[in-house]
């Protein structure tokens, strides 16, 4: 009896001490504030702590953890061999090239629509580049920082060409398949209040239902629709059996996302993307970047590539981002400028750049960079 009680007592004390040890160790981290509990995990980024930027952690780790999509061809897609490719994926490569001089120092972390924002909030990914729409709520209340918009998207509707739907309005009382829990679902209810929205958890079950004609239309961002259309199985009719209707009924500016309150890191992400747009405007490509760095044609190119211009001994321009001053040379030579990345990924799924919002402002689009000076 007595031994039993003793055993129980020892067990309790052990449990209490264990919990106490956890609680106390975290207290130490947080300046002895007795009320502060343990952190979520060892990999916590110390968000909001000005002293430790994610940039330092990324450099110390030696790889960039990039949250991406794995099921949208052209933007973020993983092939049968496990290789990631796409427009968004190339921006991950670009950031890795800027930080490490190695575009492959990236660890891709596939995210669903539901997990992507918490993944940034908890520091599970360093940067999220997964066709994520910049909205006020996400920027302010959710505590995220959006870099420059890399792709201007908008919601559209895809239908079977044999069904005879020619406009969004003609689907007023149709059944429409949509991914549930997305802004897309809300936009659909706004645009076609009489329609029946059939919400799916994932694109694959949705596509099965669409192929079996469970629904008349498939709504999503047009870039995603184009991607799914380009990979539409031949047994089900292939890409040509589908039409993406012309009307765009929402604004979806997509861009890289980082955690709030870490300006050092957010600016690196932001200006890598901006630099690629500047390179496009200045005509610096992966083919000519080496020549241009050795022999810059004008001062704007010199500033972008971080090389001296003009008289002998003049200092080179340094962007002062906490990484190499010549980081854009690596980005452009290893990954390419904005136009090259677009042509390699987005054009093949059937969205040519010319004439869209994503053309350069010099060609009538709205892709426009702030001055690099």
């Amino acid at each position, binding site marked *: 009896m007595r031994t039993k*009680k*003793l055993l*129980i*007592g*020892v067990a*309790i*004390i052990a*449990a*209490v*001490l264990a*919990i*106490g040890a*956890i*609680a*106390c160790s975290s*207290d130490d981290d947080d300046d002895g504030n*007795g*009320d*502060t*509990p*343990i952190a*979520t995990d060892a990999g916590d980024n110390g*968000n*909001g702590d000005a002293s430790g930027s994610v940039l330092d952690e990324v450099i110390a780790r030696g790889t960039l953890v990039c949250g991406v999509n794995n099921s949208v061809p052209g933007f973020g897609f993983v092939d049968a061999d496990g290789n990631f490719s796409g427009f968004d994926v190339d921006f991950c490569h670009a950031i890795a090239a800027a930080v490490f001089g190695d575009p492959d120092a990236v660890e891709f972390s596939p995210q669903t*629509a*539901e997990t992507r924002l918490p993944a940034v*909030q*908890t520091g599970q990914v360093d940067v999220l580049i997964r066709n994520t729409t910049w909205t006020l*709520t996400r920027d*302010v*209340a*959710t*505590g995220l920082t959006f870099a420059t918009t890399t792709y201007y998207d908008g919601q559209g509707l895809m239908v079977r060409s044999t069904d005879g739907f020619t406009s969004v309005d003609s689907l007023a*009382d*149709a*059944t429409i398949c949509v991914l*549930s*829990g*997305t802004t897309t*679902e*809300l936009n*659909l*209810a*706004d645009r076609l*209040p009489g*329609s*029946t*929205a*059939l*919400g*799916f*958890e994932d694109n694959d*079950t949705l596509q*099965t*239902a669409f192929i*079996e*004609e*469970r629904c*008349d239309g498939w709504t999503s961002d047009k870039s995603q629709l184009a991607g799914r259309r380009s990979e539409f199985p031949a047994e089900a009719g292939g890409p040509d059996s589908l039409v993406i209707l012309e009307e765009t009924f929402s604004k979806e500016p997509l861009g890289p996302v980082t955690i*709030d309150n870490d300006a050092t890191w957010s600016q690196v992400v932001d200006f890598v993307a901006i630099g690629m747009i500047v390179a496009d405007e200045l005509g610096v490509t992966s083919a000519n970047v080496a020549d241009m760095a050795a022999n810059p044609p004008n001062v704007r190119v010199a500033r972008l590539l971080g090389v001296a211009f003009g008289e002998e001994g003049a200092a080179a321009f340094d962007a002062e981002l906490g990484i190499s001053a010549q980081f854009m040379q690596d980005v452009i030579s290893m990954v390419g400028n904005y136009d090259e990345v677009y042509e390699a990924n987005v054009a093949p799924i059937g969205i040519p750049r010319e004439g869209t919002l994503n053309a350069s402002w010099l060609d009538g689009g709205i892709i426009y960079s702030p001055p690099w000076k």
Partner: protein
Amino acid sequence: MAAANQPSPSHPADSLMGLAGPRVLRLLIAAVIAIVGLVAALVLPLAFVLIAACGLAIVTLASRNARLQRYAFQAAFAAVIILVGRVLVSNLTTELDKTNLESLPFVDLSGSFPFIDFSMDFLDRRAGFGLPETSFGQEYTENNSYGDAYLAGLLNTLRVAIIGIFLASIVGLAAGVARLSNNWLLSKLATVYVETFRNVPLLVQLIFWYTAVILKLPKIQDDASFLNVILISNRSVAVPGMNTSDGFGLWLLLLLAVAAISIAVWYLRNQSQETTGKPSYPAWSAAGVFVVLGGATFLLTGSPMTFELPELIGRSHEGGLQVTPEFTALLLGLTLYTGAFIAEVVRGSIQAISKGQTEAASALGLNGFQRLRLVILPQALSIMIPPLTNQYLNLAKNSSLGVAVAFPDLFRVTKITINQSGQTVPMILLVMVTYLAISMLISLIMNVLNSRVRIRTR
């Protein structure tokens, strides 16, 4: 108390508090101490609770006073539980603070008493999303509130759970009895059914029913029809529905009276059967009375109900009763999966009845069906109900897998609401409480049934 003068420290009810006085008073005191302790633990700094727990544990070990030891042990145990809870809760709130999700802290330790903010105001906001189907005639559009959407999800879950429990019971009973049948083919078929459906994960079965069976039904334009009465397509299966006109309410009232008369007939015939010992067919007589009188009142009130045939208009079925493929897939999956488990429950319960009962029933001259219905099943029922309750609970909870086949059930609506409103913690707590309530309701009903069955048979 009879044993008051005897030392009985091991009796849990006595040793719990060790206080004199009536039991209610002791419980009250315990409750007050618990509440005061909980509030104190939430207000006091973490370190203080830690020290208190350590101190109490030391007292437990060092003390030679048995009663004090018991007190200290209980208190130390409570302190440890509170400590763990405290760490988890404050971890949640600080992490939420970090992410600027100001609307979130549902449990707000920095705020004033009572710490828990039960404000669920966001449920009144416009939902903004549509749902493909609702139950029990509820009207819902995207202009309704999150609360209405939640209700729609709840009703959808209840619809599939109630119908599922009903059908799974029938399937399970049939398969369970069939497995014990002397008919070789029948019993082997039942065995194959039970073993197949019990051993494949429900999620896999649901995806199978949805994508490989239901979605493969004819497309809506070339839907199959059965005499133009039942229309079948992969968008909906439509059967005739009812249209009511004036006098329907009156007819329903009269029908109630007819039902009462039928029950009376059943009762009287049953009594005469029991007194005379001759079969008087009480159920058949009652059914006959019900049909004849019910039909007569129907005509008297001017045929207030007409059947409405479904038809194909454009790209959807209109009129009649329509069942969506998502609902059908979920119902089919839940019914056949749970039915296989229920079959085993039924088989086990029947086999638990001693063979002498069957032999005695045979000796009385009862045939196979009579043996089963009058002798075996009534006894097996009392063994069956507790494990059956488990199966019903499983079915109700498993209905949340409907998210995989696009069925707008409670969990699906919860997930959409979380994504659109950002109210993760309140919504998860709400949905947990709701499922808990559904489960407890089922348990309650089954417990009542259990006590009734037991009284009648033992």
